[in-house]
């Protein structure tokens, strides 16, 4: 299952333009020792509401109230009370002035705000400006072109990447664009410059190896939304015609699936897909395939039902496809993990500002016990990463993918702002049971698969194919056929 364009709206939008500043500490100092624990030290002050009392009012400006709320919220709710040792009050003065100077220019004001937030160097920490009223947005609309695209290598081991159609249909709506096609224009506009711009916006690709593909894929996917009942002209290189350029007017469709609302997130289409991957040769084990596009609590019964049906069909192994799943309600990881864990385990620990929480999962004697592979890609983020890393570290699953996950695994909240914008801010830090962090580097595949446009053009899904082979290998020698009743 791939993420539809709207899904990206749920994910952190941080440009990560900067790194978390680490204080230079004497390795033998008390501060250095304390720095190994909760991230605050005597040398690096913690911030609280009293520290923010009695400050001079900021200069006026359209977006100043929004900035003040962001500054306060992050200052008081970020899990690290030292805010990476930044002088938060000095930043209020300097950034507040920039926001005031920006006047009603929301782009400039929010650029200044995000520059400040980026100093913390984390995902899920980003301010989104209000949508300009009355602005005609070419790509706006609730509908989508029914394709999924990703920014992947042209060929095996190639450093040249393209926007490739990896799924030519969504929810049963064929687009007519062939799998493996390279997208070149959307609505008559070449996308190459936009791709380059998006790729260049990632300033620390080594620290966040999945981010470029994530940012580019998300940015181009956003261009594929369109008005209900409309259509979008797509130009692409057709792999079935020697990469000849073709243009197709593709009807837009409304994303299907049961709608779920949670707070400011309204009417999200949720999908749970499952199917049995039957044996292609005698003696091969049937493998269950289960995918869901979000982590929203009302989806739990559908996931349970999907797995139950696969088990009733004698699936001996399971593939959980979390590619493109951007996360959602973190606590949903617990009931889903309970479906596949017979022994009690911890999926990791959340360190909040004033307390810790453990993702404890009670063992379930009726849980599915066969081998499990979790599929990831650069769009696998947040709760999906916590779930994958947590289960990997307790040895229950094998992670399969062509590269690391998004590396955006920090719990966060979203608030509306006085000017109509939004602030998403980090409230906790996550580490797996083995102390591993998913933030930044993401979850690395244990089974690294070579993936390129060539595979999709040939009709292959190399990551899924590799996972099927692997779980079948884990099952060992083919089981004898079941006795007739």
């Amino acid at each position: 299952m791939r993420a539809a364009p709207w899904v990206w709206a749920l994910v952190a939008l941080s440009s990560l333009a900067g790194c978390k500043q680490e204080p230079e500490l004497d390795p033998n100092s008390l501060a250095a020792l304390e720095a190994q624990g909760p991230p605050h030290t005597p040398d690096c002050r913690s911030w609280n509401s009293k520290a923010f009392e009695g400050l001079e009012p900021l200069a006026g400006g359209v977006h100043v109230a929004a900035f003040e709320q962001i500054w306060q919220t992050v200052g008081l709710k970020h899990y690290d009370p030292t805010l990476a040792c930044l002088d938060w009050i000095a930043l209020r003065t300097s950034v507040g002035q920039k926001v005031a100077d920006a006047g009603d220019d929301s782009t400039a004001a929010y650029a200044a705000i995000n520059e400040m937030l980026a100093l913390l160097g984390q995902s899920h920490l980003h301010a989104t400006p209000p949508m300009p009223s009355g602005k005609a947005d070419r790509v706006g609309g609730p509908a989508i072109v029914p394709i999924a695209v990703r920014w992947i290598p042209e060929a095996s081991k190639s450093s040249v990447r393209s926007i490739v159609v990896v799924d030519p249909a969504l929810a049963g709506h064929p687009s007519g664009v062939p799998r493996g096609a390279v997208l070149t224009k959307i609505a008559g506009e070449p996308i190459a410059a936009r791709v380059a711009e998006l790729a260049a916006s990632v300033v620390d690709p080594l620290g966040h190896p999945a981010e470029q593909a994530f940012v580019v894929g998300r940015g181009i996917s956003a261009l594929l939304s369109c008005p209900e009942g409309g259509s979008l002209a797509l130009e692409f290189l057709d792999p079935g015609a020697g990469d000849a350029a073709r243009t197709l007017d593709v009807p837009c469709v409304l994303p299907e699936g049961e709608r779920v609302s949670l707070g400011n997130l309204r009417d999200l289409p949720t999908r749970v897909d499952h199917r049995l991957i039957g044996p292609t040769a005698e003696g091969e084990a049937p493998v269950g395939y289960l995918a869901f596009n979000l982590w929203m609590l009302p989806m739990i019964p559908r996931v349970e039902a999907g797995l139950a049906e696969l088990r009733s069909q004698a699936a001996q192994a399971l593939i959980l496809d979390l590619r493109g799943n951007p996360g959602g309600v973190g606590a949903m990881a617990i009931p889903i993990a309970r479906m596949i864990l017979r022994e009690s385990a911890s999926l990791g620990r959340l360190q909040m500002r004033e307390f810790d929480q453990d993702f404890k999962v009670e063992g379930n004697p009726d849980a599915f016990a066969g081998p499990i592979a979790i599929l990831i890609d650069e769009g696998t983020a947040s709760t999906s990463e916590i779930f994958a890393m947590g289960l990997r570290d307790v040895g229950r699953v094998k992670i399969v993918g062509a590269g690391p996950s998004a590396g955006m695994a920090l719990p966060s909240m979203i608030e509306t702002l006085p000017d109509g914008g939004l602030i998403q801010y980090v409230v906790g830090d996550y580490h797996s049971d083995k102390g591993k962090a998913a933030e930044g580097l993401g979850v690395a595949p244990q089974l690294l698969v070579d993936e390129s446009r060539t595979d999709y053009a040939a009709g292959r899904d190399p990551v899924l194919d590799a996972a099927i082979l692997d779980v079948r290998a884990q099952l060992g020698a083919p089981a004898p056929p079941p006795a007739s009743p």
Partner: protein
Amino acid sequence: MRSSFFRHACFALTLAFTSACTNNESSGSESPTKPGDPDDPSKASKSEPDKSAFPPAEQLLARHVEVSGGADKIAQFQSLYVESSLDTGKQKLTGTSKVWWKPGKFYLEEQIEGIEPGPSRMGYDGTTLWMSDPINGLRKLEGREAAGYIQASSSMFPAHDWQKFYSKAETTESIELDGKTLWMVVLTSKAGPDLTIGLDAETGLIRLMKAKQVSPMGETPFEVISEDYRDVLGYQFAFTNRMSVSGLIEITTVSTKVEPNVAIDDSKFAFPSEHPIVPADPAAQPPIPAPPAGTGPNE
């Protein structure tokens, strides 16, 4: 209503772990205390107070009972049904809660949009405390976790029967909240988390409660500010409660329907009957009996 103390906690427990896609709102009011602030100047510079100068905790608790209406008014309550709205403001998470209460027993349902399937439920029949929520499913609670909820359910009249769940009450400090002086009384629990109550020095009413919610994931500190006291059968209940889980979420609960002494069947509090688990393998499933003749769809 005071009973919201525990249902607040239940609600926050569900939301506290939301990840990337959840929203939150900061309330306009400052928390009166910031537990854990390592460099809170008010704490850093504070010397140990002379507690002998404080009014005794037992006296403050007894006064609360008196100003709220008195023990004879409390004795009138043989049952209570309360409906409330839940709202997190800009976070736009809203819902409702319903509580059925009898002395020593309770049942609650909370329905929050997006926190489904179905309402989260909790019940206690005087023997078994159980909870059903989307995260941990249906389970019986035990130990410190159960004790925390059971003692919180008594918070309908917390100062009246405090000795049932708490072994000691001590006045520890006075603080200022919204221009009012509060005496802070720490109740040491016999089996669950301790409870701190802030009693208005002028009115004697409870304005603040602080405790920790125990769950399988750990302990979550939270506090509740109570206001909008109204008379119900001669007893003062707080109709608005603002709960905050520090750094995460603020929830305002407003009681919209309060019905004392309604008929409540005791079966409402009991652990739900457990349904037999049907094996996934059709071959292992019990045969479904054929319907009696004449009941088929085509007959």
